[in-house]
Every structure is written in structure tokens, then in C-alpha cells.
């Protein structure tokens, strides 16, 4: 049976079983490979996307349960038109291998949408589900603060 999903403002009909996780719909079916597979069990955050503005682990959302509009890293900015977070990520040279960074940015975007002046503790709280094996945490924190002050118009 075909399901219909809206991703980055575009509607797609997907002919896959309803239990296939959104992650694998995005990656294999829609070719949106910016969203990464790290664990498949909600333990790393590499697969984080937005569903109606909430950060969700796309490895845990079955196709049949996708409700509302999905936004992926490709939907928030592009190399020629970077989003405020992506600009901060480049300014702080955050990435090392970079594999976790789509998920980090998507998680941070939801934090900042709700709170544009997060404390260190609030950043820790929001970001601790996102693993980075390269250890870029210090620069992620700095980039989040830069983006936050940008958003506050400072």
C-alpha cells in the first residue's frame, strides 16, 4: 500500500510496508542521504529530523505513523543559502568526520526555536542524546551560542 508523506515541502507517494522507519524511506527511497543511520535504536541522534517542528529520531518513526510535515537537513539550508545554524557551524569549524552533524544541527534547531538564549545546562539537556564519536562537543556548544545570539539579533 502506498503512503503519502510531505518532506521539505514536497509531497511523495511511497510504496513500502508501513513498518519501514522514516529514516530508510528518506535515505533509500527519496535519496535524501543527509539524514544518517548510526544505531537504529534511538541511541545516537544521527537520524534526527523534524516532524511538525518537533525533533524526532527518524529510525523510530514508522512510515505509517508519519504525521505532519517532515523537514530534513536538506530542507533547512543549502551550501549556497546556509541557515543561521549552518553558518555558525562553518564559522566554528565544528565538523570532524561530520557524520553526526546533520543530526546535531537538526536537534539544535529545535532547541533554539523554543529558547534563543539557552544556558549550558539547557544545551547539555537538549543535546546529550546526540552522539559524536569525533568529540566535537565544545565547538557544537560554541556554535549553538553564536547562532542563538544571531537569532536574538545581537
Amino acid at each position, binding site marked *: 500500500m502506498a503512503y503519502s508523506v510531505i518532506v521539505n515541502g514536497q509531497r511523495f507517494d511511497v510504496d513500502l510496508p508501513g513498518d519501514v522507519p522514516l529514516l530508510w524511506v528518506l535515505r533509500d527511497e527519496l535519496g535524501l542521504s543527509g539524514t544518517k*543511520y*548510526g544505531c537504529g535504536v534511538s541511541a545516537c541522534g544521527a537520524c534526527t529530523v523534524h516532524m511538525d517542528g518537533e525533533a524526532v529520531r527518524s529510525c523510530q518513526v514508522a512510515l505509517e505513523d508519519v504525521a505532519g510535515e517532515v523537514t530534513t537537513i536538506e530542507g533547512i539550508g*543549502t551550501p549556497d543559502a546556509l541557515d543561521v545554524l549552518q553558518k555558525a557551524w562553518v564559522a566554528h*569549524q565544528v565538523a570532524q568526520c561530520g557524520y*553526526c552533524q546533520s543530526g546535531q544541527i537538526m536537534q539544535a534547531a529545535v532547541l533554539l526555536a523554543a529558547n534563543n538564549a539557552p544556558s549550558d545546562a539547557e544545551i547539555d539537556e537538549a543535546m*546529550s542524546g546526540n552522539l559524536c564519536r569525533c568529540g*566535537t*562537543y565544545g565547538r557544537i556548544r560554541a556554535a549553538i551560542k553564536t547562532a542563538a545570539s544571531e537569532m536574538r539579533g545581537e
Partner: protein
Amino acid sequence: MGRIKKYTRRAFIVSSAAVAGGVAFGVYMSKKPLENPLKPEAGAVTLNPYLIIDQEGVTIIAPRAEMGQGVQSMLAALVAEELDVAWEDVRVLHGPAAQAYYNGELITGHAEYEDGKRSAWQEFVRDAMDVVPKTLGLQVTGGSTATIDAFEKMRLAGATAREALKLAAAERLTGPLRTENGQVIGADGSAIAYAELAEAAAKIAPPEDVILRPSSEWKYLGRDMPRVDMVAKSTGTAQYGADVRLEGMKFATVRINPHLGGGMKSYDASTAEKMAGVERVIDLGNGIAVVASNTWLAFQAADAVDIDWEDAPYPATTDGLFAAIEKTLDEAPNSTLRDEGDTSLIPEGATEISAEYRVPYLAHATMEPMNATALFTGDALEIWCGNQAPLVLADKAADAAGLSADQVTVHTLFMGGGFGRRAEADVAILAAKVAKAMPDVPVKVMWSREEDMRHDFYRPAAIARMKGAVKDGEAVVFDARIAAPSVTKQSMSRIMGFAPPGPDPAHVEGAANQPYDIANYRVAGHLADVDVPVGFWRSVGNSFNGFFHESFIDELAHAAGADPLQFRFDHIAPLSPPTAKLLAAVRDMSGWTGKTPDGIGRGVAVTWSFGTPVAQVIEVANSDDGIRITKAWIACDVGTALDPRNIRAQMEGGMIYGLSAAMHGEITFANGEVEQENFPDYDALRMGTAPVTEVQVLENNPHMGGVGEPGTPPSMPALANALFDLTGKRARELPLSKLFDFAG
């Protein structure tokens, strides 16, 4: 990464007429220039193996793979520095697998703290090299060697190309000529772009004695350079092995015998074959592959195959494995690469202490699980994956597909972490087998995280028996006996089919080669013959020896009633002033007084590895929900700091990798299988548990050292020493989460 397609075998044939190949520009240290592997398309010109110039501008080939260490940007900066191209205009490609890109530093080895101490590794590798078939080549990204190896080669490539371009411009411009922003500029200011001069330059015999610019004239080197991969990695557009997408591609996964090295007696795939999206189940001999229309459907079906496995060729439990390792301590050592004075005697009036340390097997757990994509077309095989050794990979994949190595093309993509895991060819071998069973169909073979964690080439478990003595505040005896399976012997056997005999220096690195002045000093290496696959794990032997050595030095310092930082300083200063300066640097950065208030602990450690000494101070603190690692101070000395920001990032990342292992990392065995499956059983530091870190990069070391690995070894003992300071409990076993209550 789209341009990489241009260097496929097909492109070679089409474009060979336009090629100015083999112009080596005096780049090579070896006598005979190796063939320039670049065969660019029509309209593009290659001046040497590191450079392609076409109408769009300059493309620099960085033949070391990007796994997060920033190597491609670094290598490009070396060329760009001499070539005078604007940084924004530089494009970088990994380039093909080719002998021309051998890594010379792997052969010469890193500088030890004393000149002349390089010999152990050199001799070992030279013995090995005598017998390595030349076809295997050493295009390897590993051992923290890339920049050191490239430092001269790639600057020379840029400089000779620049001079050739100037010669080509000499007919059209009046001198003196200078170069800037990708153009040659005449005395009157008129300029010609490199692109216009490239074809003529390629016909000019390259100037032989180009002089490299002194560091005082550097514009890019020595500065914080923006990385060329940063925008792609911040927008989800960087292409990793897992992201490869080819026309008509199928999605597959593998399930290999969890009794590592064992085969498969039989299997029943009848349920799996009927599952949604499943196309085929393929017999791989030691496991199966499922080919499907979607990776997740392949994962589900692979789990549904009923398989009767053969047993493991090693003891089935962690205890059994440790017993096998421990047994070798009673046998003759493989090496005593440090043997000074007589450690069997305890000097009169000295205080003797002894201790036994144990560390577990560890997984690499790269963020991107293992994967490779392959296409077999009867007489050719193409492979796409992130890898640290493309020539080895091509060779092994060729064997698996029944082809010769020159029928295999390897495309190297970004790696979502390497840490040594992607130096292994197993992933490509399996992909080649799957592709061979599916001719003319590209197949992406993606491993599940569980498969990745349970089929690694692990950092070996190790045991150390330490004995020492102190007298009048000084260490007078240090005796270490270290037992573990040999990474070098196993991996060389995998690559070459046999292991060279003789002492294995990698097994004792981090213990036998440290700059401590101790009169009676002996380090013996005992090799255990255990068949659990082991491999290069970030910093290799240093990862356990650093812990053993620096934990026991701490014990000696306390036995001597000395401050642990001052104790190290006093023993190191006579042999390695640059290393002593690092201890002074972390003392000043951290405000070390040797005293900590209640509820706070501090530990220090220093390890010389890969040519770079690194000192770290770690601070821990009690909190309501357990112990936290609050702060870390790192000082390192790389000799010449070519990109300070990137060096700081590598040092911090290397430390966090080590702290993660020290706190949580443990691979255990039951019934011959690895018990850990995924991050919940093999966790790492996270945003809230990682320390706030400060890094200082010094330049007193007379040699250039590596940066990718040296941050890891001192982190584990520094943390254990800090916990001793906090709690009075000495950790002689890892992971520390078994002994201490950490805040989550």
C-alpha cells in the same frame, strides 16, 4: 564529489590522448619516478600527481582519506602555499588508488624523543618490506603520518608546478614574473591565468631545484585554515560511503558468523526469502547477505535467516581469553626494547611496589557503520567506500571476485570516522562477493550497527605486571611485563599472508619508548596467540601502554611522597626538555598546585606517541548524581604547527575518544560471541559528560609529529589518576564505570 567519476577506467581510455602524464617534477624521494596515475579528461592538464588544472581552475589531489582529521584541507594547503592559488578557489579530490601515493612516513617511522631511537620500528618495517610484494603499496591513511609524509612532497609539487607555469608564461610576459591568485603576473601588471598556461607548462621539463618558501613567508601554513569540507558537512551534502547512489542500485546487508573466524554449517532462508522487498539471499561461506529494495527490509530479513554456525577458534569467554593472555607472561618475551640497568634487584633502602593492570578489548564504533558499494561487470569490479588503504582493498577485493588488482577501481569517499577500522579490507571483500553474485547490478552493502560492533578488529585486551621502586623521592626501578595479542602480526598476516618474525615494537609503544630517566628500566612485550581479530585502534599499542605506564608512574610518585606532576617533570627533563615543557604548560594552564579541595580530584599523564608528546591534566568532581569529568587541559608539541585550530580539534577529539573508552568501553565474550551490540552497551562521552577543554600547541619539538592519535593515550591514565586523587581508589582495570559511579 561528483567529479570523482571522471577518473574511472572509462574516463582513462577516452582521455588518454590529452594526457601529459608522468611529469614527476622531482617530487619523489625514490630514484625512479612512479607513474603519474592521473589521466584527466580532455581540456584538463596534470602537472604532477597532485595537481590537475583545467578551465575551472586548480584541483589538488589529496591522496589521504578524510575521516575527520582535516587531512584533505591540510594537504591542499601544502600545495596551495607554493602554488599561489586563492584558498576559496581550491578544489580537492582524494584521487585514485595508486602506487605514486605511497606513504613514506610509514616506512621511516616517527621520531622518538631521542634521535637514533627510530630504529626499532624501522628495522621491523624494513624486514617486512623486503618481502612485501610491490603491488600492495602503502597508500595508507594511518599512523598519524599523512602531513609529515606530505610536508615536502606536496609543497614541492606546488612549487615546481608554479615554476613551470612561470616558464610557460615567460614567452608572453615580461619579467620579472610573479604569481598570485592562480595567475602569472608580468612586470607591467598584465596577468595570465594558470588554466591558460597549463598545457604549455606540461610540455616543459620541470625545474629541478626549486627552493621551498621559508615559514616566515607562509600565507596558509601555520594559520587556522577553513576546512574545504566544512560547508558540505554542515548541510548534509557530504557524500560518505553509506550515501553512494547508483542507477539501478540494490540495498543489501550481511550477517556473518558471530564466532569470529568461524564458518557456517548450514542455513535456512525460506522465511527470509518470502519477506517484503527481499530479492535474494546469498551464501558467503561464513555468513549470508540479503539483497533487497530497502536497507531496513534487508536488515529484517537477515535476522530471519536461520543459521547453524561453526564454533569460534578462540576461548569462548572473556575469562578464557584473559587466561590465554596471562599465560604468556610466564613465557619468554617477544621483545625487551627497553632494558637498562638491572630491574631484578631492589636497591638497598628503596621502597618496592608492584601491581597488575588489565584492560579489555575495545571496538572502534565509528559513527558511520561499515559499508561498501560494489559493481561487478564480468571483467571489472568497482568499489565505493570510505577506506584508509585503497591499494590493499583493491588487491583483496580482486581476490574475492576472481579478478586481478588492476581490474578493480576503488573510489574513496568521506568516512564517518575511521580510527583504524577502515584500514581493514573485510567490508570490501564481502561487497565484492555480493556483487559477483549479482553481475551488472550495483549493490550497497550496509552493515547494521549490531553487525559492525560484533565484527570488528578490536583493540586487544592486555595485561601488565608492573614492579617498581622509589628511593629519596626518585624512581630507581621500573619493570613492566606486558601481554596482549599482537595487532601488527595479525594485520600483517591479513595483508601479506604472513607475519614477519622478530620483536614487535607496536606492542610496547607507549611504554618502552617514554622519555623517563630511570636507572633500572625494563619493558618486556609478551605476545599472546589468540585468534580474536584485533586491529589498529586509534593510537594502537599506546592505547593500553600509555595507561599502564602513566598509572604506574603515578603509583611510584605517591610511593615516593612526591607531587605527581613534579615527579614526572624531574624524571623527564634530563631526557626530553620539550616534553618537560609540556608538563610545565599544563601545570600553568590548570593552575596545578598539587592540592585539590574536597570533592575535586586532578590527575596528570604524559605520553610520547607518533612523534608528538602530549600532556594532559583531567579534573573530576563529585556531584549529586555521581562523579563528573569537569575540565581538561592539554598541551602538545607537534614541532611545526601547520594548522593550529585543527591540531587543537584533533587533540580534544583524541582525548574524548580515550576518555569514552576509559569510562565505558568494554567488549566482552560469551559463547564465543561479542556481547555488546549497540551504543546502549557501548556508550561514549556526550555533550553533558564531556569536559570543558583547553588546548595549547607548542613548537619546541625538533621533529614534526602526528596529531590524529597522540591525544588518546594520556587521557585514560590522567582520568584514573584524577579518580585516585578524588577517592583514594587506584583503578587498575578498565572501564572505570565498573569501579566508580559516574553522573550520566
